[in-house]
């Protein structure tokens, strides 16, 4: 299998990006094909590479990029089952997003720069997936970060986009600095930055202090995959256009962290402590984000918190030593979460608002965007993890892995001794995974019911017919112009087609895990069949979650239809270009389920305020101190020496009185002084 193909996969979108940037301003018409074709071709190439590689094979090839005086940095490729699986996912999602964006941002003047950045992002993601050298991986890693910064800041007219982009880049950069130190430690101990050398060194036990390395790498992963301590940037990143959220903040970039840990799992298996830390991190992320998702009013923020939660799942699987389950869940989650975001995009596009309570008061929303409605339903079912769809299988794989780790025989599939994974990690992951399954079912159901099926929307056709969208009062339900009513306009084909393409893997991909010669053969060969106990408990918890949400929703709608206004909650809605809506929550089961937790959950448990108090304010104080230090202390030294010279000059001039006798007396005094000095 010649090396041209894998080398071409990351190169093509990069060249496409350059071409789009170059030609974008002069002939916007050309920008669309230049955006879609390279990404699509590279997706196909990724598939070809995957097929050529076949199952259970590892390909390593490298050429020196540069000497450094120490360990060399090389352009290396490390292809195995994981890389081909994820590269195909990335190719698929990226192509869908590019196609989807042509319609979504049809009338946006800055489309060429947007498309170029998405292509550059895809190239960077391919580089991370294929790269065999840690430093080159870091290059792809940070280029992804800067592309997400620019894309989040696409609508730089709005204040939210401006602050969200800055916050996203700084939080990920905060994670990347320890990540770099982790790479240094690995490079120094293994003598080279090549991943195969690092893995061999881990195998021979030549790594000096694995726990420190693992923790440093975890910091980077937490930053990039929005895990507990550094997750605050992802919900705000929803200020970017929805296709960006779909591509970057659902399927690819956030998955890079998990992919890296999967790649370097032997290093992590060397230290039990790191695995426990990973498990605790995953648990807190899962539960916290699920609770927050239950309380959000913005459709995209619900999905963002859901992504954070699902990434917690994958991290939990890794904490229990089974990277197969984690990647299996990663791929299936990538598919259905991308689908959810794109469908959400359609709904937001049609409803001109992000807030689900405002959507709930739009009559007949279901009718207007049927495709989005059905695909969203499928995706939500996959998210909840009910049997037929892929979500069920991948979630069960994670639960089985946790269960095995809990009773001591972790499914490390030959990467390390089963005993390497402490049972505590297994128990933490198992319990939190169960609880999150229930909460996930709850918020998914809440989302679906409130958005599409709230009675107020259906029961108030009469209140419709309000004038055009421009001047409608903040809390009046928005009613569409006549032409937007029929589905053909609300859902242009370019938006509809990708939904169904992504729906296929959402439904079918789960089965691929059943047969041992399909997916497991591609990966490490461990079985991915869910064990009976976890299957039953998992699904049971999911069903209970749905029922709870349904019950709470029924009660809430019953109360509203009798005229009892639900307690008004003027929530701040970071809306997109849609109408500002400080809306009244009509019938929200979340409030009933969460009770007292509803307020804090809505604002992400105050983590943002904590961080600004912990980090931002001390840095600003330090900056003011430095400015004072620079102006007062260093300056006084310099100015002082200048003034010293001036003072001496003034004294010398004063001595120059012009009187000859003063000169003579000074002269003789000097002579006497010298004579005494010498003679004595």
């Amino acid at each position, binding site marked *: 299998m010649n090396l041209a193909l894998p080398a071409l996969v990351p190169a093509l979108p990069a060249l496409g990006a350059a071409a789009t940037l170059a030609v974008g301003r002069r002939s916007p018409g050309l920008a669309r094909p230049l955006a879609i074709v390279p990404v699509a071709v590279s997706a196909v190439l990724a598939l070809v590479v995957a097929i050529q590689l076949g199952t259970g094979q590892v390909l390593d090839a490298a050429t020196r990029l540069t000497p450094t005086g120490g360990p060399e940095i090389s352009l290396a490729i490390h292809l195995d089952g994981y890389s081909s699986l994820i590269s195909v996912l990335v190719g698929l999602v990226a192509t869908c997003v590019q196609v989807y964006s042509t319609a979504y941002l049809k009338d946006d003047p800055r489309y060429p720069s947007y498309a170029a950045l998405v292509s550059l992002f895809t190239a960077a993601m391919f580089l991370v997936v294929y790269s065999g050298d840690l430093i080159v991986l870091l290059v792809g890693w940070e280029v992804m970060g800067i592309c997400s910064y620019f894309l989040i800041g696409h609508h730089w007219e709005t204040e939210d986009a401006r602050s969200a982009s800055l916050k996203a880049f700084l939080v990920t950069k905060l994670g990347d600095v320890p990540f770099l130190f982790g790479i240094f430690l690995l490079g120094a101990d293994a003598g080279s930055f090549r991943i195969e050398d690092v893995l061999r060194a881990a195998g021979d036990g030549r790594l000096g202090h694995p726990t420190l390395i693992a923790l440093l790498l975890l910091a980077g992963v937490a930053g990039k995959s929005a895990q507990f301590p550094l997750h605050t940037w992802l919900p705000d990143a929803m200020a970017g256009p929805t296709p960006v959220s779909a591509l970057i903040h659902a399927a690819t970039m956030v998955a890079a962290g998990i992919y890296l840990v999967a790649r370097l799992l032997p290093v992590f298996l060397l230290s039990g402590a790191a695995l426990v830390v990973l498990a605790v991190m995953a648990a807190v992320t899962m539960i916290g984000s699920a609770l927050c998702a239950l309380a959000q009013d913005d459709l995209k923020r619900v999905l963002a918190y859901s992504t954070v939660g699902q990434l917690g799942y994958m991290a939990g699987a890794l904490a229990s030593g089974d990277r197969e389950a984690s990647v299996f869940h990663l791929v299936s989650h990538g598919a259905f979460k991308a689908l959810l975001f794109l469908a959400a995009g359609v709904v937001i596009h049609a409803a001109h608002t992000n807030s689900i309570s405002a959507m709930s008061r739009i009559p007949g929303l279901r009718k207007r965007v049927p495709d989005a409605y059905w695909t969203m339903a499928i995706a939500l079912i996959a998210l909840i993890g009910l049997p037929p769809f892929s979500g069920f299988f991948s979630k069960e794989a994670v639960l089985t892995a946790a269960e095995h780790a809990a009773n001591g025989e972790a499914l490390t599939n030959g990467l390390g001794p089963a005993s390497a994974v402490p049972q505590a990690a297994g128990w933490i992951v198992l319990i939190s995974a169960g609880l999150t399954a229930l909460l996930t079912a709850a918020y998914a159901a809440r989302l679906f019911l409130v958005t599409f099926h709230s009675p107020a929307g259906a029961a108030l056709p009469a209140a419709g017919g309000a004038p055009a969208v421009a001047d409608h009062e903040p809390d009046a339900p928005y009613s569409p112009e006549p032409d937007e009513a029929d589905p053909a306009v609300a859902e242009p084909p370019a938006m509809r087609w990708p939904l169904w393409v992504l729906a296929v893997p959402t439904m079918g991909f789960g089965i691929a895990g059943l047969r041992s010669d399909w997916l497991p053969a591609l990966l490490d060969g461990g079985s991915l069949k869910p064990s009976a106990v976890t299957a039953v408990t998992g699904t049971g918890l999911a069903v209970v979650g749905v029922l709870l949400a349904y019950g709470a929703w029924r009660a809430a709608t019953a109360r509203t239809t009798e005229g009892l206004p639900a307690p008004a909650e003027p929530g701040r809605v970071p809306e997109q270009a849609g109408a500002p809506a400080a809306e009244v929550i009509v019938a929200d089961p979340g409030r009933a389920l969460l009770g007292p937790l509803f307020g804090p959950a809505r604002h992400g448990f105050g983590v943002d305020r904590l961080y600004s108090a912990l980090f931002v304010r001390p840095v600003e104080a330090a900056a003011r101190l430095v400015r004072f230090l620079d102006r007062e202390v260093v300056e006084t*030294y*310099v*100015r*002082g*020496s*200048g*003034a*010293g*010279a*001036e003072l001496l000059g*003034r004294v010398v*001039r004063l001595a*120059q*009185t*012009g*009187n*000859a*006798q003063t000169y*003579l*007396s000074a002269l*003789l005094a000097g002579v006497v002084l010298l004579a005494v000095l010498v003679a004595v």
Partner: protein
Amino acid sequence: MHLAYPVVLAALLFSVGVYGVLARRNVILVLMSVELMLNAVNLNLVAFDAWLRDSLHAGQALTLFTITIAAAEIGLGLAIVLLLFRARGTADIDRAIALGDPAESTADVDEAPVGTEALKGRATA
């Protein structure tokens, strides 16, 4: 005669000369006290020459030269004093201070030398 007498006398003469130079207001008297100092030195030289019993009599030779130099200097000195008197109308040494450094102007004329530094502080700090 022991060496001490002429040397002490010379020292006394020299200090009287120094006092005269520093204290007198009239320039001519200052000139006279300078002459005193020179003669004190001559006395010294001659005394040492005798005390050393120098065959080459270098001391006395130098005294001769010093006397001629003193004469020349006084000639010139008086000419200068005469010139000063004719130009300034006074021989008072304290009045001849026209050439001193002009007083510090209150505002610095050219751009304020703020920020300029000789960095003496910097070098020693």
